[in-house]
C-alpha cells in the first residue's frame, strides 16, 4: 500500500497569479525575500489579495537556504498577525520557510526538527497555504517536504509531513521570466535531479514515474534554451511546469543519494543546492546503475538516446548529462565547485556522516555504505568514473 499526495489545486498559465483575487479569507501573510519584493512580485500578489478583501502583511526576510532562526522569526510574525492564509512566494527557500513557519504558527508546541510524517500536526485550524514559485526547479510548491539549514550544526534538516502539501499552487510563467541566468541553470538542474531520482527511487510508483519521465524530457529539451535565451517564453513556461512535475514525482517516491551527497556538500561548504547536486549527479547515477540498469535504460530511451547494450546506454546517458550540465555552465565534479582537495579531506568524515543520515540514502536503489560514500566523494572530486 502506498499513497500519492498532491496539492488540492494547481492553477497554471499566463496570468495565473490573478487567481489570488478568488481567495476567500480575512488576512494573508506573504512569506518571501527581499529580491522578490524588489522585483515587485510581492506587491503584485498583495494587490490581488487586497482585491479579494484580505488584510496583508509581508515577511521578506527569508535568506537562501533558510535557517531555523528565520523560520522561528517568521512564525512569531504570524502569531502576532494571525493570518488565515500563508502565502509562500519565491524560490524553494521562501516556500520551505513558509511551510515551516506555518507549522510553528499552528503548533507552537512543536519544534522545527520534530516535524515528521509520523507526527499528527493537525494543520489548517488557523490557516491554509498557497505556494507560488518564482523559480523553476525545487518543486517545493508541490511537495510535502521542507529543507531547513541548521547553521550551528552545519547540517540540512530534511523534514516532511503530508499535511504540508499546499492547498493551492499557482504557476504563473511570467514570474520566472526575470530569473538571472545563473539561477535558471541552478534551479533547472535541481528539477532534473529531482525527476531522475524520483524515477530511480525504491519507492517509485506508476504515478510518480509518469511525472518524472515527463520532467526529465522537458529539462533536456528546454533547459538549454531557457538558459541561453532569456526571452524564450516557451522554454521558460515548460521548465516552470516541469519543476512542479518533478516535485510531485519525488514527493511521492523519494529522493536518492545524489541529494544525500548534495545536501551534505551544500550545508558544509555553503553551496547552492542546484550546484551541489549537479557536481555529484553523474557519479551517484553510475553508482546506482548496478541496481537500477533497467530504469536507467528507460531514462536513456526517454531522452532519445539509442544504445545496443546496458553499458553503452549508461555511458551515453552520463555523457548526455555532462553535456547538458556544461551547456548551462554547471559543475560536473566537486573540484569544479571551487573546493580544494585539502578542504574536502578535512570535511570528509562530516560529509559521509551527513550523507548517511540523509533520507535520500534509504530509498536509493543501491544503498551506499560509509566506505562507499567516502569513495564516492573522492571520485566525485576527481571526476573519476565509478568502478566499484
Amino acid at each position, binding site marked *: 500500500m502506498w499513497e500519492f499526495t498532491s496539492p488540492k489545486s494547481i492553477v497554471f498559465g499566463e496570468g495565473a497569479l490573478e487567481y489570488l483575487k478568488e481567495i476567500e479569507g480575512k488576512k494573508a501573510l506573504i512569506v518571501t525575500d527581499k529580491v522578490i519584493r524588489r522585483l515587485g512580485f510581492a506587491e503584485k500578489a498583495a494587490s490581488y489579495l487586497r482585491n479579494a478583501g484580505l488584510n496583508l502583511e509581508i515577511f521578506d526576510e527569508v535568506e537562501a537556504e533558510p535557517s531555523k532562526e528565520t523560520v522561528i522569526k517568521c512564525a512569531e510574525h504570524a502569531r502576532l498577525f494571525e493570518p488565515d492564509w500563508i502565502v509562500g512566494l519565491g524560490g524553494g527557500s521562501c516556500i520551505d520557510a513558509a511551510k515551516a513557519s506555518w507549522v510553528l504558527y499552528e503548533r507552537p508546541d512543536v519544534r522545527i526538527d520534530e516535524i515528521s510524517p509520523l507526527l499528527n500536526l493537525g494543520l489548517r485550524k488557523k490557516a491554509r497555504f498557497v505556494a507560488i514559485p518564482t523559480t523553476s526547479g525545487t518543486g517545493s510548491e508541490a511537495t510535502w517536504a521542507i529543507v531547513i539549514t541548521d547553521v550551528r550544526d552545519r547540517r540540512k534538516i530534511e523534514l516532511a509531513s503530508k499535511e504540508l502539501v499546499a492547498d493551492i499552487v499557482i504557476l504563473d510563467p511570467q514570474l520566472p521570466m526575470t530569473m538571472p541566468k545563473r539561477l535558471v541553470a541552478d534551479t533547472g538542474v535541481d528539477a532534473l535531479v529531482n525527476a531522475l531520482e524520483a524515477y530511480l527511487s525504491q519507492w517509485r510508483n506508476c504515478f510518480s514515474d509518469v511525472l518524472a519521465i515527463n520532467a526529465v524530457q522537458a529539462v533536456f529539451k528546454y533547459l538549454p534554451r531557457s538558459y541561453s535565451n532569456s526571452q524564450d517564453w516557451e522554454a521558460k513556461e515548460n521548465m516552470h511546469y516541469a519543476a512542479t512535475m518533478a516535485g510531485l514525482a519525488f514527493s511521492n517516491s523519494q529522493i536518492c543519494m545524489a541529494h544525500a551527497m548534495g545536501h551534505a556538500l551544500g550545508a558544509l561548504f555553503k553551496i547552492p543546492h542546484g550546484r551541489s547536486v549537479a557536481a555529484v549527479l553523474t557519479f551517484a547515477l553510475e553508482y546506482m546503475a548496478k541496481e537500477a540498469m533497467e530504469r536507467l535504460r528507460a531514462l536513456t530511451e526517454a531522452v532519445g538516446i539509442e544504445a545496443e547494450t546496458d553499458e553503452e546506454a549508461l555511458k551515453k546517458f552520463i555523457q548526455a548529462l555532462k553535456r547538458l550540465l556544461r551547456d548551462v555552465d554547471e559543475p560536473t565534479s566537486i573540484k569544479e565547485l571551487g573546493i580544494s582537495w585539502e578542504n574536502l579531506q578535512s570535511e570528509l568524515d562530516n560529509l559521509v556522516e551527513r550523507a*548517511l543520515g540523509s533520507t535520500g540514502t534509504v530509498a536509493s536503489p543501491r544503498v551506499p555504505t560509509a566506505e562507499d560514500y567516502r569513495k564516492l566523494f573522492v571520485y566525485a572530486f576527481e571526476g573519476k568514473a565509478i568502478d566499484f
Partner: protein
Amino acid sequence: MKKFKFPSEEWIKAFKEELNKNEAYAEAAKDWEGDFLFIVTPDEGLDKEMVFYVDLWHGKCRDVYMVLNREAKTAEFVYEGPYSNWKKLIMGQLDPIQSLLMRKFKLKGNMAKIMRYTKAASELVKTASKVPTEFI
C-alpha cells in the same frame, strides 16, 4: 537450519546476534544511544501482546529480552504494530520506512533524533528479515 519462533525470547536473542553481525548497521548507528520497545499487538493467531526490550548503543545491540507487558519497562522509543504486519516485515514484504509512513507501524519517541539515523533505522528493521523465523 534452526528456525526461531516469532515472537519469543529465542527470536529476539537471534535478532541481537544477527544485528551485531550487520556492519552496515554498526557504521550507520556508530553514534546512536537509545533503547527501544518492540511491541507486537495481537491479531491473526496471536492472542496476547508481546513486548521486546532492545538496548542499542554505538552501533551494537547491548541487550535484548522479553518483558511482561508495555508498562513493565520504559524505553526511549516504542515501535509498535500488529502481528500480521510484523510477519510481513520479517518476510521482507514491507518496507520498514514506508510501513511507518502508511501507519502500519507506529513509532513513538524523539523523531528529530531518529530522522538523523534513517539508514540505521532501516538496517535495524531489515536485520529482522535475516533471522530464520517460524511463525505461529
